[in-house]
């Protein structure tokens, strides 16, 4: 399952990255005479409401959607691991302050804050990554902190400390590698959440702005002509579906692989 997911994801990612070379069409060049053409040999997925080749936009939209998903999670994981690592390593008042911050962030009703932030800071891919990532790191922080709290008392850490290793070295070389498993699993699953969040924001008109394509805004735009041109809705939906399934199955696979208890069942 995980392997299939990996293959799907790799294919989606590579065709998106190679979009410019794969498709002869421009993703933004409109052609009003070809509005909402059915799928044909010239346009395998048909055209959209401005006569643009849907396949091309799917490829280019994939860049944006995948990039937003991955980068938002990368950001969340970086913030989360840093906060969690520092809190777990130093403990005491540092831990206390940082954990109150985590409590605070968790107490924020995320979708409401998301809407406000998207309204204020606009909706280009960079701000979307910052906003989505900035609201999703608390789980990772708690996880890493928990792992560190238990790890830091272990012998090999004590040993490193006695040998005079700096805190950053201990964190990076000794603690983090031992806590990385759950982080990877959680973040993989987080990617699908981030992609779905982007599409939901698009539905509310707060996603990626035109003419740039994202699967989310393509799906939303399709809403207006769903009956007349179902293909404009089917393909972006399918892409999101495939990506999320792929990412989730990779996440599940990793969890099983990293969970020692599960090994015997395989």
């Amino acid at each position, binding site marked *: 399952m995980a392997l299939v997911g990996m293959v799907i994801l790799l294919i989606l990612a590579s065709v998106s990255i190679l979009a410019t070379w794969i498709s002869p069409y421009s993703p933004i060049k*409109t052609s009003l*005479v070809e509005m909402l053409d059915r799928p044909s040999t010239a346009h395998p997925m048909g055209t959209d409401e401005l006569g643009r080749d849907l396949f091309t936009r799917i490829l280019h939209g994939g860049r944006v959607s995948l990039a937003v998903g991955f980068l938002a999670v990368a950001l969340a994981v970086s913030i989360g691991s840093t906060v969690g690592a520092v809190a777990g390593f130093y403990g005491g008042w540092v831990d206390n302050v940082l954990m109150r911050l985590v409590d605070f962030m968790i107490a924020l009703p995320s979708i409401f804050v998301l809407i406000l932030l998207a*309204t204020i800071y606009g909706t280009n891919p960079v701000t979307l990554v910052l906003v989505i990532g900035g609201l999703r790191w608390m789980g990772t922080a708690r996880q890493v902190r928990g792992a560190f709290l238990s790890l830091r008392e272990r012998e090999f850490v004590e040993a490193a400390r006695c040998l005079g290793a700096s805190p950053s070295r201990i964190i990076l070389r000794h603690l983090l590698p031992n806590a990385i498993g759950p982080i990877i699993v959680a973040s993989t699953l987080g990617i699908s959440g981030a992609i779905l969040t982007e599409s939901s924001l698009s539905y*509310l*008109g707060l996603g990626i*702005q*035109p003419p740039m394509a994202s699967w989310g805004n393509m799906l939303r*735009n399709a809403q207006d002509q769903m009956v007349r041109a179902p293909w404009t809705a089917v393909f972006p939906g399918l892409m999101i579906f495939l990506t999320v399934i792929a990412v989730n199955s990779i996440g599940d696979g990793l969890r099983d692989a990293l969970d020692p208890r599960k090994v015997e069942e395989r």
Partner: protein
Amino acid sequence: MTTRRIHWTRLGQAGAMIGLPGALLAACGEQPPAASPTKAPEAVKGEPAKPVAAAPTAVPAPAAASSGTPKPGGTLKIALYQEPGNLNPYLNVQTAGSVVRNTIFGGMVRPNEKGEYVPDLAKEVPTTKNGLVSADGKTITYKLRQDVKWHDGKPFTAKDVKFTFDVIMDAANPVTSRSGYRDIESFTIKDDYTFEVRFKAFFAPFVSLFGAILPSHPFEGKTAIEKSDFNRKPIGTGPYKFVEWPSGDHITVAKNQDFYVKGKPYLDQVIFRITPSREVGIAQLKTGEVDVVWNLIEAQIPDFDGDKEIDVWAKPGLGVERLVLNFSAPTGDKAGDPTTRHPVLSDPKVREAIELGINKKLIVDKLLYGKTTVGSSPLSTGWAAPAIPASEFSPDKARKLLDDAGWKAGPDGTRVKDGVKASLTYQTTSGDRLRELAQQVIQEMLKEVGIALEIKNIPSASLLGTWADGSPRAKGTFDINMWTTNPGIDPHFHLFNYFHSSQIPTEANKGEGQNYSRLKDETVDKSLDEAGSTPDLDKRKAAYERAVKAVSASRAHIFLYNRLDVDGARKYVMGRTHNPWDNLAWDLENWWINK
């Protein structure tokens, strides 16, 4: 946004009620002295009107409605895509609110579908001819109908009008606009059914004041009404009585048995269903959960192609979708200062090239499905609308013009002159589908002539914000904006506010005025001053024509297409007449259900 979909342009329909001096109307024949043109004329509180007058001149039955005699009874369900804030005519600006209020409240006079004022609660429209307007035009007398009752059975008298006036002027009430009312010197009740209003100076659109009357008795004379329950459970004199309003779901009004027009309204009940978006309303119309969907956009018309049970009501409205170009510097300390120059758009050749480069016809044909016409003037219809030919589409001419003006194509195709790149930001309200589509097409058309546009849409609350909120159009910190506005019944206020050089928002006038382009044009200023100073309709029309031609030539605004008023309805909904000067519900007492 999705209320984010507050469609500001259509909010402008409130502006449809901007006062037209009654005397300016051919139907009224008389012409009182005109407003002083030296100051910005203030448009008047545009409270959309009320039940139709008993006047024999009232709405002729439209052809569509002639399929039989009206059948009384039944419940009509109308989808509104925004929820009214409240139902007090003076505490709310949204058009959704005025649609509902139109059925509940009555006012002195109201415009009919031809743009003529007809009496409502007043017996006749005051003019100098009938002696109700004094010779100096400053004193107006209203005679009221004596057969009107409030929904709770109490008689309607001049006391109620006075109370309404006191409410508007009460400092504690956050009323949306006091324009006109603040120029009233005295309000005198002559008898129960006669009152006299004296203005400090002649106020041309006087006739549009008192567009909705509040009852005094429920308040027992207390005029501080901001927090009153009345705002949500109003009592009026209109054809329908308020029944209930479960928040976020629907508003129900029921037939006013005592309505002063005997035999009307026909419907027993009207339910306004609140939907979060137009799309939801359309779905509900298709399933038959509602009978009418209020205020669609042109691009939604094909949604109903081939639907045998639904009629799309699409008629030319007053709105014109336009690009607004900034003539002043968009950045720096003196951004928006009319003495500065926009690095690109201050060149008239660039502006001309922009218009030449846009294929408006293609946009109308493809994005608006050929349902409307291309724009060429701020006044698309009405007595003062001049005939301005549609602009030419010629990318070749545009390119030549730019070449000749010294704008040479750079390496990326974008033109450059003296180190300045012809690259502009292009903003409209985010989440508006039709605008987003038009934007992308225009972006590409202009790329063809070497002008780069960067789309940077922001929510309508920001784009249409005020000077104090730092809105880009008020502050002049934009390149090109796109939205619709609507000149209302009397074009003067619209033209003056948007194009007269005295109306440029600046620090000095605290951002008052809507000349967002920072247009300073002598012909425009002189023509508008002249039009504002003469009561002569022909002279005014000629002056407006000169002004509009100069505006079009300046390309302060580039008019893209004329908007339609679009509503959808089940075929059995009868009796409705389109009135571009008012909203859908203006004649709801004439509607009936044929099934």
